[in-house]
């Protein structure tokens, strides 16, 4: 695990030096612009608009980073052959994968933390105070982070056996499909057979359920989020990430580096 930590810190350092965190400048500008103009265009609902906009921006920016950097985590190392000298050291392949995953999750966590601070600063500007109900935002942001972890795990898995372009397609497809898993269980169409219904139902349980992590609407309105959902999402994300990382390790441990 210590060796995975060494890889993780280096992955974080790579993200910082490759100016990944520069996206924060964009987020800061967006929040500033929103804070200034939101009062003029939305009478009485400035707070909700600010919260929705902030959470959406945190989610979209995080997703872009998770997908576009995640798909290159392993592929880039193989393509540029930076992995060769590393794997000759006493480091197991799964430790390398875990380190790459941890490094990008750390990058996303730092990024999300900075954006959270920006969102609260913008809210403070609009409302002139922060109240206890705003803490729900933190739970929504925590859920976004859990969702991003899952996306990183998927991108890492696809990165182990396909090109970045295909890995982007696969990861995006899983993400979009994962937003509709509940619909897949309830959707009915003409001419369906029991076998098709069972297949769709089974598939809906195999796909990651990203809809569970979406609490933006209640968070924007300050509605409380149950403790059970927090526990459920935490356990779900950990379990799903674990399974996907195990699959990635299984694929990568047999991979010949050319």
């Amino acid at each position, binding site marked *: 695990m210590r060796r995975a930590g060494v890889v993780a810190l280096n992955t974080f350092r790579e993200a910082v030096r490759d100016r990944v965190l520069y996206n924060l400048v964009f987020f800061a500008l967006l929040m500033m612009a929103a804070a200034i103009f939101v009062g003029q265009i939305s009478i009485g609902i400035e707070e909700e608009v600010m919260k929705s906009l902030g959470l959406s921006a945190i989610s979209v920016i995080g997703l872009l980073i998770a997908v576009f950097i995640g798909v290159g985590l392993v592929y880039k190392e193989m393509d540029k*052959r*930076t992995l060769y*000298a590393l794997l*000759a050291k006493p480091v197991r392949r799964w430790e390398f994968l875990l380190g790459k995953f941890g490094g990008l999750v750390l990058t996303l966590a730092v990024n999300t933390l900075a954006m959270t601070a920006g969102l609260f600063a913008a809210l403070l500007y609009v409302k002139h105070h922060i109240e206890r109900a705003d803490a729900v935002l933190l739970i929504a942001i925590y859920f976004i982070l859990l969702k991003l972890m899952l996306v990183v795990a998927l991108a890492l898995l696809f990165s182990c056996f396909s090109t970045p372009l295909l890995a982007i397609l696969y990861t995006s497809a899983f993400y979009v499909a994962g937003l509709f898993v509940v619909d897949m269980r309830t959707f009915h169409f003409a001419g369906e057979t029991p076998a098709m219904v069972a297949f769709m139902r089974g598939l809906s349980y195999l796909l990651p359920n990203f809809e569970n992590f979406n609490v933006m609407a209640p968070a924007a309105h300050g509605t409380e989020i149950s403790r059970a959902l927090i526990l459920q999402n935490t356990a779900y994300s950990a379990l799903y990430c674990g399974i996907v990382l195990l699959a990635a390790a299984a694929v990568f441990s047999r991979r*010949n580096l050319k």
Partner: protein
Amino acid sequence: MPIGLIDDEAELPKNESMPAAAIEIENLTKDYPFGFLHLKKKRSLEGLTMQVENGEVFGFLGPNGAGKSTTIKLLVGLIFPEAGTARILGKPIRDIEMHRNIGYLPEQPYFYDYLTAAEVLDYFARFHDLTAADRKERVTRMLKKVGLETAGKIQLRKYSKGMLQRVGLAQAILHDPQVVILDEPMSGLDPIGRREVRDIILELKRAGKTVMFSTHILSDAEMLCDRVGVIVGGKLRGVGAPGEIVGMKAQGMEILFELPGGASNAAGIAAEATKTGDRYRMHVAEEELYGALDQLHAAGAKVLSVTQVKPSLEEYFMHLVEADRAQGAAVEVSGK
């Protein structure tokens, strides 16, 4: 480049339990898939069996695509064999503990270009459970050893190919491994760099390390190696001392001479020799040497040197390559 000891000689491992052979390879076979759905396979290495003894410098020779890098990648665990086994210092190559005692320089190495050389070395040193103070001391020492002490704080994206090769060499020997495996270590280096790498290899040998390196620069192999192995078309064609492997029989004598302006019969002698600048080279059979010297003396030629001509490793090498090409080069197997 200042050359110091790899590590204190007094600390050299005199390991009684160490196996006689540092690297043992038995029947190692590797196929590379190709074509649609990767159903066809090209055999890159076929039944390689050989040993590299402890403390020797072993040269692995062969043309491009012969299987040198494949063998080395198999040994360090970057690829996996179809058949066969290999052990380094008595440990199977899949054993992670084996990696503690090996150093590896990949062919045309490339490292994280957002890091400096010192940061790359420190990063790799962290996988060897070294303390922060030890890491710092080793990184400084290695940068000095490979001649990068002044460039150690520059990001690698600004490094030349030769400088990257030096970083690669430094990371390979940073943790003082017992076995050092170098894939084309002279590649990309200028004559000075090659000389420095040769010095490091000889220094490793003096420190009791085992060095295996692949190359197609035969003069380096002749100069450095205790033994060489020649691989062509994925098959090992010979192993032995460089002199032993090509045979010691002289192929004749070469006479180097000058013809001063007043030399008599100069035109006749010159016609039998090859002119290089203002000097001539004449190749004669061993038994004809004295007759030729008398003839040169009589003609007023100034003899500069007489050298015995032996078949070089290069000639031996080219002979094998040509024989292999004639037989149809690499073996292809399909649907295996």
